[in-house]
């Protein structure tokens, strides 16, 4: 009865082929193009130069890289700090209210960055948003628009990633074993202390992994920095797009993307290794 099943292998060739050609293929070709020479009249000339990578080692890209890392770290920390307790409360609610939250969060997750960014632009504008309200209440003498600014960009990023983190934690928090918490509560521990001393330590690995995921996610955001940030707030993603599309310098854009790819893979791989070691202990 046990024999080599041909049909499933043949079927497997379809997803394998599609993912290899259209997912791995472009990534591999991007590495190739990063060594090409820029052609001001077309896309690029076939060549093998390190020039595009050489450009990375300058004070401009140094500050852009630092800024990207710093902004992503801050945004991911803020997002997880807000979303985790929120979902912790939500899973304790009645099923009907959970569904309302989940649909709302799913809608936000699917909703375009462009739409969320635009909504914040309006909310922070002088003519229609918070500044106008504050001015009308007499709390702000001459209100000015709050965006573009670094704060506006951070708020936009957090509101973009919030739903993602919340939905990542939803199954874990919903299915968690509540026995220890209940035991602590029966012994008279106040709920806030249970949260900090029992729930947070249990979820430490999950929290760490969500921080890494969100850090990588925020490294790649493009719309929020361009819509809500000033040019001096722009991250590496904006610079890559700017070089590749606006300045038609695909080899340089590719080289920068490869550097980011290597950084991301090292980060994820390093984290996976660290958690495996911890688990083995």
């Amino acid at each position: 009865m046990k024999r080599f099943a041909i049909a499933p292998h043949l079927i497997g060739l379809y997803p394998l082929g599609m993912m290899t050609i259209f997912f791995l293929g472009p990534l591999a070709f991007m590495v190739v193009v990063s060594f090409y020479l820029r052609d001001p009249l077309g896309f690029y000339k076939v060549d093998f130069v390190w020039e595009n990578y050489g450009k990375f080692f300058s004070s401009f890209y140094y500050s852009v890289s630092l800024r990207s890392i710093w902004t992503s770290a801050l945004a991911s920390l803020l997002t997880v700090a807000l979303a985790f307790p929120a979902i912790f409360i939500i899973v304790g609610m009645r099923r009907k209210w959970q569904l309302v939250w989940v649909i709302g969060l799913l809608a936000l997750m699917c909703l375009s960055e462009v739409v969320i960014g635009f909504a914040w632009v309006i909310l922070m504008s002088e003519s229609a948003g918070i500044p106008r309200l504050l001015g009308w209440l007499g709390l702000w003498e001459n209100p000015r628009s709050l965006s573009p600014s670094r704060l506006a960009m951070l708020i936009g990023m957090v509101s973009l990633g919030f739903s993602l983190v919340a939905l990542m934690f939803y199954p874990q928090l919903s299915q968690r074993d509540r026995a220890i918490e209940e035991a602590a509560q029966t012994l008279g521990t106040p709920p806030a202390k249970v949260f900090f001393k029992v729930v947070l330590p249990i979820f430490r690995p999950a929290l760490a992994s969500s921080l890494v995921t969100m850090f990588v996610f925020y490294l790649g955001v493009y719309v929020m920095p361009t819509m809500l940030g000033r040019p001096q707030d722009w991250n590496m993603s904006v610079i890559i797009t700017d070089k590749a599309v606006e300045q038609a310098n695909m080899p340089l854009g590719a080289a920068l993307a490869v550097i980011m790819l290597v950084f991301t893979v090292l980060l994820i791989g390093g984290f996976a290794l660290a958690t495996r070691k911890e688990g083995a202990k």
Partner: protein
Amino acid sequence: MTGMLKRLFLWTIAAGLILPFAVVFGVSINAESNIAFPPTEFSGRWYMMLLTQSDWLIPIGNSFTIAFFAALIAVSIALAANYVLWRLNSGFGRAIFALGIGPFLLPPIIIAMGASVFWAEAGWYGRMEATIISHGVFFVTLPLVVISRGFAALSDDVIDASRIMGATPWQTFAKVIFPLVAPYVVTGYVLVAIISVNEYLISYMVSGFAVETLPIRIFNNVRYGYSPVVASAAMGFAFITVLSLLALSMVTDLLKLLGARRD
């Protein structure tokens, strides 16, 4: 006391998530032609413009066409990958599955940059088919995970019954497996379609200059001076997204699908 604090915290977050859209809604129904809030006079003319002017209708059409076919591609890949993993449960199946998780792990800018040079080289740069295939391949992760829940819920009894009664593997798939995983397939399809309609960066870098999608249109409008039509487009987006999810929640148990505790 803590109950109060909890509620206050949740309401603050809800306000932060909803407030921007409340203001955009206000702008979209305001008769004034500059962006202003609160509305002074109500009017539906921005929505009319959205649905009658060709410079909005073309991006809307493009977005929906891309989403329709991209979701088909993504779901077909996800279904095939899950079937193979379920039938073989070998390294081959697991490798395909892992490959499907890949796009989710990388920042979209890297994927978009890769797609951009790839299609430039292939000569499809600026064509809608390129955007469709890229969307279909890159959004495969979500249906992959969703459909895997469907396969995990399959009980061996029905499969054995079908085999013992002499069904070929294809018949078993068509008459037993597919009907059982169909709700998950539909959910995956709808989710990919929604995400594709909303996606900006990949569409922009693959063929943004030639195939204008709705997010590209909105983005360009916000960047280079805008009218309240953008607000009505943004609201239209939000409505369609919420409505599709509501419809989905009628067909499947969304909470269970997202991994809620059974009770």
